[in-house]
Each structure stands twice: as structure tokens, then as C-alpha cells.
């Protein structure tokens, strides 16, 4: 006989996870058959989906390096997933061993994995929370321990916001986070842009991602730009992923829209 489940949630391996699918496309093995099955579906829709993921990851790396170069030593990475390769703390601590990073993810497995991987690294911490709970994030002991919110922070919301449709009101959550940041802080965002590829590829990605439980929604350039609020855009502004401060001119592409995502960094005045 069925009995009601009183716990708020279950760990469900029948459902793919955004974080583990991402890990798969970055060449990691932190994934299960269900994640790989979904990855296969994404590949049938767009054979270059791995490059999109990698371009996102590369943007994250370049954004962090840029922020480090601007003197940022503390980062808040929301929707951090499973840090397989090129984690924020690795990138940041390579430049400054004292750099501090707080990762935030709501996925229980991603959270557990991050905790295990970061065990022993005192300058990093993981918070299990949703972007929609900015006060839980900001009020967490991890943030209190590692981040000095009176000094500029590097706020990273990379490849996350397009997994929340407007019904979840990500705009308010991001605004709350922006407001909590001191002057001089940076915000990096990458976001799938609507109608950027023929055949409604972006929209069909969104539909596939619904298996993960995330209500995906691509947004327009202006809608994405609005997430920055009054943060001043850093050159070159909100552009397709490969065009944001490439490591070398050769890294750019003649048709950057293949990346289907816009990326940008803004700084709080």
C-alpha cells in the first residue's frame, strides 16, 4: 500500500540532471546513463551542442580571469553544477591562492559531489540553495565565512537563468543579489538567446530540458541585458559567447551565433 512521502523531495535517478549532462559534454564521467541518454537526444538536435557547453565553460574561465585581473578575490558562483574541469576556484586560485569561492547549487547530487571534491580546500564552500532564494544564499554561514560583502565580489550566473521561466521570477532574485553586492562588484551572465538558430533549435533544447524538471526559457537580447540592472557593461558588452574577450583573435568565429548564448560582464557603479 502506498504511503505518503513526508520528505520534501526524493533523489530521483530516473531524471536527468542539468549538471551531469553538462559534465558529460565537458568530457567528464560524473554522469549516469539517464544523463547520457539525454545528451544523445541533444546531440541529435544539434551535433555541436558540446561546443556550446564548452564555449560557456570557456566564457566562465575568461570572465573569472578578467575579474581576477580587476582585483576580485572572492566569487559567488550560482548554479555551479559539477565542477569537472576549469572550476572557478582553480582558475581564481591559480592567479591568487587566497581567492575564495562559494559555489551554490540546488541539485543534491551536484551539491554532494562539490562538497566531496572541495573537501580540504578551506577557501571554498558549497551552499545548497536555489537562485530563487537569494536571502538563503546571502544569509548562509558559508557566505558569511568566506565572502566579505563590503568588498567587491565576482557574481557568476553562467548558463543558469535560461532554466527558469518568468513564472519563477528570476529577475527579482537576480536583482536581490545585485543589490547585496558592494560597489565595484562584477556580474557575469550567459544566457540562451531566443530565435538565434534556425529550426527553433534553442526552443527545442528548452523542451528537452524539461525532463530535468527545469522550465527552460530562452530570452531576447534586451531581456538578458535587463538582468544586469544598473551594472555598467564591460567591453565588449553583451555578445555571443565566443566574442566575449577571446584569448586570442583566432579563437573567434565567423558565425558566433552557433553558440546560441549571449554573454556579458557588468560592474556595479
Amino acid at each position, binding site marked *: 500500500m502506498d504511503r505518503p512521502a513526508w520528505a520534501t523531495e526524493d533523489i530521483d535517478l530516473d531524471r536527468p540532471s542539468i549538471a551531469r549532462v553538462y559534465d558529460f559534454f565537458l568530457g567528464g564521467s560524473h554522469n549516469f546513463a539517464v544523463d547520457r541518454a539525454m545528451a544523445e537526444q541533444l546531440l541529435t538536435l544539434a551535433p555541436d551542442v558540446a561546443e556550446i557547453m564548452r564555449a560557456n565553460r570557456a566564457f566562465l574561465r575568461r570572465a573569472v580571469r578578467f575579474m581576477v585581473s580587476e582585483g576580485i578575490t572572492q566569487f559567488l558562483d550560482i548554479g555551479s553544477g*559539477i565542477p569537472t574541469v576549469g572550476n572557478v576556484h582553480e582558475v581564481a586560485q591559480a592567479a591568487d591562492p587566497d581567492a575564495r569561492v562559494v559555489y551554490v547549487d540546488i541539485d543534491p*547530487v551536484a551539491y554532494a559531489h562539490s562538497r566531496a571534491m572541495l573537501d580540504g580546500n578551506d577557501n571554498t564552500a558549497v551552499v545548497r540553495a536555489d537562485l530563487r532564494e537569494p536571502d538563503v544564499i546571502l544569509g548562509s554561514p558559508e557566505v558569511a565565512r568566506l565572502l566579505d560583502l563590503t568588498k567587491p565580489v565576482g557574481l557568476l550566473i553562467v548558463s543558469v537563468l535560461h532554466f527558469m521561466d518568468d513564472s519563477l521570477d528570476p529577475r527579482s532574485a537576480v536583482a536581490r543579489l545585485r543589490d547585496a553586492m558592494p560597489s565595484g562588484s562584477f556580474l557575469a551572465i550567459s544566457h540562451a538567446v531566443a530565435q538565434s538558430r534556425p529550426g527553433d533549435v534553442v526552443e527545442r533544447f528548452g523542451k528537452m530540458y524539461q525532463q530535468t524538471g527545469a522550465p527552460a526559457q530562452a530570452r531576447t537580447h534586451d531581456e538578458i541585458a535587463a538582468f544586469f540592472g544598473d551594472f555598467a557593461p564591460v567591453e565588449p558588452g553583451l555578445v555571443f559567447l565566443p566574442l566575449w574577450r577571446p584569448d586570442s583573435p583566432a579563437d573567434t568565429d565567423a558565425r558566433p551565433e552557433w553558440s546560441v548564448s549571449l554573454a556579458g560582464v557588468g560592474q556595479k557603479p
Partner: protein
Amino acid sequence: MVRIPGRSGAKTLNFDSTRVGPEIDAFAPRSGAAAFAHAWAAAIAGSSYVSMSTPEIESLLVKLSERLAHAIRGIEVDRGEAAEVGAELVRSDFADGRTLGQTLLVIGRRLAADVAPELPVEEAFERVSIVQGALAAEFTRSAWLRTLDQQEQIRAAYLHAREQAQEAMRVSEGRFRAVFNGAGIAIAIASVNGTILEINPMMGEMLGAPTEMLVGTNVMHLLDGEDADLWNALSAGIPEHVRFEKRYERPGAAPFWADITIELIRDQAGTPSYVVVMGRDITQRHLLAQRLQHEATHDPLTNLPNRTLFFDWLDTIFQDQSSDNRVGLCFLDLDGFKVVNDTLGHDIGDKLLTAVAASLQECVDRLGHRVARLGGDEFVVLVRDSGSVDQLTAVADRLLATLRHPLMVAGHRLSVSASIGIVERPVRATTMAELLRAADVTLYWAKTDGRGRWTVFDPDRNARQVARYALSSGLSDALARREFFLEYQPLVRLSDSALIGVEALARWRHPSHGRLAPDSFISLAEETGLIVPLGAWVLREACEQARRWQVENSGDAMYVSVNLAARQAHSPGIVDEVARILDETGLKPELLQLELTESAVMGTAEQTPVALRRLSDMGVRIAIDDFGTGYSNLAYLRHLPVHSLKLAGSFVEGLRTDHADPVDEQLVATLITMAHTLGLGVTAENVETAAQADRLRDLGCDVGQGYYYARPVAPGRIARLLDATAGGTLRLPSRRS
């Protein structure tokens, strides 16, 4: 331009692409480890995701190229060094198979040429193959270990997360269990189809059954009697929440009341998944409310429904004005109950009331009606949807019959009787207030009609009473408002038809009823006591008028006869009052005649004869009005200071025609003879015909009064009559009626 190959391999990386063309890489080293590293970097770019910029990748590959150079150029090929390069690639996240493929390719093509050009071709081929083999073997082993390691990590993470979740669930479940089992409210959890999945001890206790027995049964069991539609609607989600109070029977125990709430629980997708039934035993509250309700609506002494409840019943009946229903009431009041209270004490009185109430209740229950105690010794029986008055009188007969049985109260054998007022009407034709008033009035009639009986409401009787009441209420102000006036009826000497006097008769000019004769208000005035001031006014007015006639119209020989009511005659100040009026008006006492009824004259008041004597001594004439209708003590009459008798109209009636009733005629003759024997004059009233006048004259009657001579008229008419005769004898014209 670099095209990153898709997984499908549709676009493989071309080593000889423009990326390494001379126009771009003009300054790239042409040979040596650096040149090899440069080509290698181009070959594996994008094959694996690494967190490095292109220059960083090149810098890594330069180091690895130097190690490859060292490996291939040793005396023996250094397999260990080659293997270490394979491991280092994987460590640097160049772990994809495509990276290995490109690496082997670029090694095969140009490692020997770039770093060991001196080797003969055969030797170079051999050594390159050994390097490739060692590198590939170690790369593959490292990548495999990396995969295993990562799989282990993610599995551990999953297990940990699940453990955390399960622990959270256990804690949550434990908390829930504690709440569920220890809750003071009864809870049952059911599936959407109604099967009870869980039930807490409180619910089991409330239902008086072990929880194990209830699990698996249908929740409708808890809602027995409730509409199945309610459940269906609820499990469909309309509404989400239902609350009601319900009475439950419990096997082998007292019934109880529960406050039940049913809530639909939905899952995250919004699909109805459970129904939670919560119940609270509110029996105590309910019993208290019931008791309070009972106390508020019942009489504490007899436990019969009280006035409040009775009015509630009536309210309910009168709310439905649409039907043709009728309603009947028996207002019942014990006769002489006060005597019981006064003689046997209130304690016995209360016990008697209780016994009466029980008898009435039993009787009324058998008839299927309702009884209430309105207060004191007053009860009411309500007959709903009555058929007719006959039904009510039958009920009243039963009630009276029931009460006729003597009751044993505290050792006393008490007989009680009751009076019952009955009213029965169509609901639509009346109002609650009208019905109650009618019942009340009728009960009063039953009392005045003689007790121990029922009386049915009579609209005519009521109308008369109402009119009388209206008159009596106007009467008290009428005198002050000068609504009374006097008319005068001539008194004629029969022997010669001379006008010898007038009788003053009071009239009331009623503001709404118009002119009223004395018979419609004198008895009222007597009842209310107003007769005393009214009589005084009449006396003074008549005396003043008589004096005016005397002075202005030569009415010296005409007396005025004024009625004196018994209460006036008996009032102690009457003699002084008459004297004062005569004095003030200047009327000679001889010209005033006072008419009293037999009963007023013969009355028990001892001072009356004294008063009459004094009046008589003053010179005032005394007449006995309506003589022959009362029980005069003729012997006593002889000693009274009476001057004349006025024969009652009924005696004169018999002389109306020429063929008079001989008995009546003989009676009148006898009365006249008797009066004359006593030295009294005789006046006949109601003389309406010539025959009457003739017979009365023949029989020796002295004075006549009646329509035959004149109706009562205004004083002006009398004045004109007097003026016309100018002091001579007035002879009123005889006329036939």
C-alpha cells in the same frame, strides 16, 4: 580558422589547415621540440575540453614535446617517459580519445623529423612506433582510471545525497509520526478513491475501533450519512476543503459530536494524491450548547418549552405566508391557582404546576400537539395545521377532562379547573400579534363567563369590547373637552296636558362617533367612576338652565328633573354639593327633582336615606326612577322621603293600543293606587301613543313623558315653548303616533 569538430566527426580537424599556414605562423619554429609542440597544439585543439587558453596549451605541449624528444633520442627508447606524456595529457584534461588519435597522428608524421632528424628512417620508424605504443597505452590506462574515478565520485555523491535525503525523510517522518500519533485531533489519511491508508490513535479512539481495523476500509465509513456527492466533488478537487459538524454513534458508548475537516492534498504537479480527514471531538461543547439551548427555551420548573420557544414555533409558522395552513391556540389558565399558593404555600403551588404541566404534556403528546408554559399558571397548546375550530374545542375538552382528575401533590389531593381561550384561524389571515391578543382576550372571556370552561374567540364580541374600550378611553377627556351637552324632555300633567317639568338628559357629542345617547356611555361612566364628575356637571348645568328659564322665560312653575347615579347618591358630599349648586345658580329647591333608581335608594349605604332626607328637607323633590324593575321594599318605601315614582317603560308598553293587555293594565292601576296610597305622585315614561296617554289619565297617573308629547330637545326649544305660553298653562298638542 579552427572548426571544432562535432561529436559526429562531420568536420574533423585538418592538421594542414590554414591555422598552421606560413602566412599566419611566419614566426613559428621550423624544427625542434617547439615546432613539434606548435603542430601538436594545432592538431589537438578542441579535441578535449581543457580549462586553458591557447598559449597555455602550447606551453604545456612544449614541455611534453621535450619529454618526447628525450624519449625518442635515448640510447634505448625511453618508454617510461613516453608513457608519462600519455598520463600527463589525461591529467591536463586532454582525455578524449580524439586527443589521443590526433597526438598519435602528429607524432607519426613529424616527431622524428622535428626532434631527431639525424635518425635513419628505419630506426626512426621503429622508435616512433615504440613511443606511440607506450604513450597510447598509458593514456588509455589513465583515461580509464579517470573515468572509473569520476564514476566512483559521482556514485559516492549520489549515495551521499540520497542518504542525506533519506535521513531528512526519516527525521521528517519521525516528526510526522510523533505528531500523528500524539495529536489531540483525530486524523485519517485516505487515497483519492477513499481507502483509508493511515489512521492515528486519536481517530481510532474517537470511532471506538482499533486503528488496524479501520485501515483499508473506506473513508465514507467516517462520513456515514454524508452525501457521497460531497466526497466525489472533494476528490475531484471542488472544493479543496470541507468542514462540517456531525453526530456519530459509537458502538457500546454514548454518541459523540465531531468537527470534521476534509482536505485534499495535491502532489507537486497539482494532481490530487491524498485526502486528509481531521476530526475533533466536540461532544462536550455540543452538549453544553445543547444544554444552554434547552435552558434558554425551557421553563426550569416544569421543563416545558417556555415563552421563547413558543414564540419561535409561531415565528416558524408565520414565516410561511404562502400556504393555506391554519393555526390554533388554546390559552389555558388555572382557576383559583392563587388560592392554592396563598393557602398551601408556594412550594405546593410549584409542585401543583409541575404536576399540571406533566398532565398537559402527556395529553398533548397523545394528540400530537405542543404545549408551552407562558408563565405563572398560564399554558398554551399549539395546534399546527389545524382543521377547524371544532378540532380546537375537542382539544380543549380533552385538556379540561385531563385536569378534572384530582392530582396528588405532597399528600394533598388537589382538584384544579382551568379556563381556556380558543382561537383558530388561517395563518395568512392573521398575524402573530393578532393571534396572541385574540387568545388572551378569549381566555379572559372564559374566565368572566364562569371559569372551568372554554370559550371560542368571537369577532363580534371582540368588536363590541374594542368599541367600548375606545369609548371609555375617550370618556375621561370628554368632560374637559366639553363634549357633553344636555337635552330636555318635557314632563306633562296628564289631567290637562300642562308642561310642568323637564327631565335633563345627557348627550355626548363624540368626535368620531357623533352624537351618543346615555345608554352607550352611562354604564361605562359608572364602571370607570367618571359618573361622579359627569353627574355633578349635569346637575349644575341643568340647574343653571332651569334658573335661566325661570328668569328669562317665566318658567317659574317648571321643575327640572336630574338623574342621580347610585355612586353620586352614596358619595358623602352629595347634600352639600346640591345645596351649593342651588345656592350658586339661585334655583329654588322646589324646582329641582332628583331621580334615583330603586337600587340607589334601597342600597346598602346607610347614609343614603339620611342624605335623601336632608335633600327632601331642603325642598328638593325625590323621584324613584324605573320603578318596578328592581326589588323595592315597599314597607321601607313608606318611610323614605320620596315624592314620586317613575314607572318603568315596560309597564306603559302594554297600554300601547286600544286593546290593552288587561294584566299590564291591572298592574299599572295597582302601582298607581299603591303610590297614591303612600302619598306619592306617579310619572309614566315612554308614553308614545294617545291610547297610552288616555289609559294612564283614566287610571289616575299624574304625569306623562314620552314621544307622544315631545322628544328630548335643546334648551332653546323649551325656552320658545315657555315664551309662547307667556306664563300661561302650556298645553302640548296631542298627536297620534
